């Protein structure tokens, strides 16, 4: 039997496929379709300090092999999350990665402090890259200094206990330098990639279709961008664990991200079309790895980077 376990920093997971933040709500909703115990972990919808209504509707538009969303981080806020959602997940024996999002460096630190003492959390994903906030200038992940400051604050607030996974946006000129910055500031791993900034215009109303005008593109359309981002960052920092995501909807897709350098893979948009996607992908991946002679998942991580064998000619 192949060893499918993986690690992200100090966190160990028996299985390599995770939900993607914002694509499994708080986990409960999927329990009818997948066994939450049997997947890597539930990555929660990004939690903010206070409750938020999010954006007006329409919040989504389907595009060719993708969708654009602008949810605007609707959620109940951290206190309600810790009081209700987290205990439910722990009770139901799900591993949990809590995703946090803030509007200021301070808000991230406050969130991290609240998580520090909460039981049952395997890691913290820091969403510094949500493209849905009103002012694009405020996207932390597009600014090397701001992203370092966020991670720095979270690191201090959390202490050394929980691994920090910094989630980055692909909408930058130099992804590797942003990645280096957050790792230097104390992140243990990276989540790649968040959605790509995009827009759909409704040709009947002849205006942007989403109430939030721009939104984030996800789904199979962006998989080649995700593979490139993971490959680039793994090339530059082969020891930094990467939680890969972006358009994965089959075991073949997951394998592609793992070969590029991902130690684990989150499945987002695919769950919308198929709520049992996470489990199905995990099973398909295991089969593909076995068929290629791997005896553990970790052998395949970054395998596409191996040095060319001596030519036989």
């Amino acid at each position: 039997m192949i060893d499918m376990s993986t690690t992200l920093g100090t966190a160990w997971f028996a299985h390599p496929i995770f939900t993607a933040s914002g694509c499994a709500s708080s986990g409960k909703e999927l329990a009818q379709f997948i066994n939450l115990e049997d997947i890597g972990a539930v990555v929660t919808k990004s939690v903010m300090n206070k409750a938020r209504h999010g954006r007006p509707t329409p919040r989504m538009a389907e595009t060719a092999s993708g969708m654009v969303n602008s949810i605007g981080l609707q959620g109940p806020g951290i206190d309600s999350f810790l009081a209700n959602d987290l205990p439910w997940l722990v009770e139901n024996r799900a591993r949990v990665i809590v995703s946090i999002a803030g509007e200021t460096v301070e808000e991230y630190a406050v969130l991290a402090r609240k998580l520090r003492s909460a039981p049952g959390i395997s890691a913290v994903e820091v969403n510094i890259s949500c493209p849905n906030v009103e002012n694009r200038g405020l996207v932390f992940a597009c600014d090397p200094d701001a992203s370092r400051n966020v991670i720095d604050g979270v690191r201090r607030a959390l202490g050394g206990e929980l691994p920090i996974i910094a989630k980055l946006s692909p909408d930058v000129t130099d992804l590797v330098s942003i990645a280096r910055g957050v790792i230097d500031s104390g992140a243990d791993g990276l989540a790649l990639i968040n959605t790509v900034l995009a827009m759909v215009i409704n040709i009947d109303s002849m205006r942007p279709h989403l109430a939030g005008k721009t939104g984030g593109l996800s789904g199979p359309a962006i998989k080649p961008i995700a593979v490139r981002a993971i490959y680039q960052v793994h090339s530059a920092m082969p020891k930094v664990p990467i939680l890969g995501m972006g358009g994965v909807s089959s075991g073949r897709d997951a394998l592609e991200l793992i070969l590029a350098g991902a130690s684990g893979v989150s499945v987002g948009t695919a769950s919308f079309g198929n709520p049992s996607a996470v489990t199905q992908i995990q099973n398909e991946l295991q089969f593909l790895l076995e068929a290629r002679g791997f005896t553990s998942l970790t052998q395949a991580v970054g395998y596409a980077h191996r040095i060319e064998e001596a030519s036989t000619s």
Partner: protein
Amino acid sequence: MSAINKFAEQIRPIVVSNKRVGQYHQIILNVGDVVTNCRPGNFIAINVGGESTRMILRRAFAISRVSTSGVLGGTMELIVAPHGQGSRWLCSLQEGAEIDAITPLGSAFGIPTSPVNALLVGGGYGSAPLFGLAEVLKSRGCRVDMYLGASTGSKIYAPMEGKRAVNTLRIYTEDGSMGEIGRVTAPIAQLIAEGAVDVIYSCGPMGMLSAISSIVKGSDVVHQCAVEESMACGVGICMTCVIPVADEFGVTTMKRSCIDGPVMDGSLVQWNLVGKIPEVTP
């Protein structure tokens, strides 16, 4: 375990028949035992476009009626308007085609425990779930009146068998091509004033549901409406389908119409905020 999506099953039904009816297609699916958990108001979410499609999201359709009696076992009827690429694909399926579906999803119409006077109001294909509902209400001894409206006659869906389940059926079209001319909402105020109705069940365009809510306001008529917001997942995980709804304390939050709906209490939906968000944070 979670109670959300409790009865939902991922199934691969076969298309038993597909007939054009006016501007709609009546599609019957061989869904098996899952019908026993289907209630009027629930919906089905269907994958469209086939194996190599670029359409990645499911499409939602109200369950029009279910039957357990036939030789085929449980069947489910849908009324589908060929609207965009996904629904057109569904309407183009031949008998025998296999599809991928999840059902039953969402909330159902509440059924009164004692006999009441019920008015069922449907707009366009919104009449689909009302005939199944009418049968249930009838079996509970309710009086069932039905008003159906559409812009034109070919958009009225009112099958023969369905008519048997209602006491009266009135049809309104904006162009007068079928039934009476005008909007389905026009006569409701008078009915309420006459005390002739206890519960209104509605399904149709958001504008119609909103108009009924205004008319009902101030009366003690209960208004249960099936809302329709664009859905990406249908199972509560994406947060795209939200509607502003007040709770018992008057605090409005954005509720998911796929799991907290589609059937909602019309008096709690904040119609003026649909497509907006509440000013104050919850």
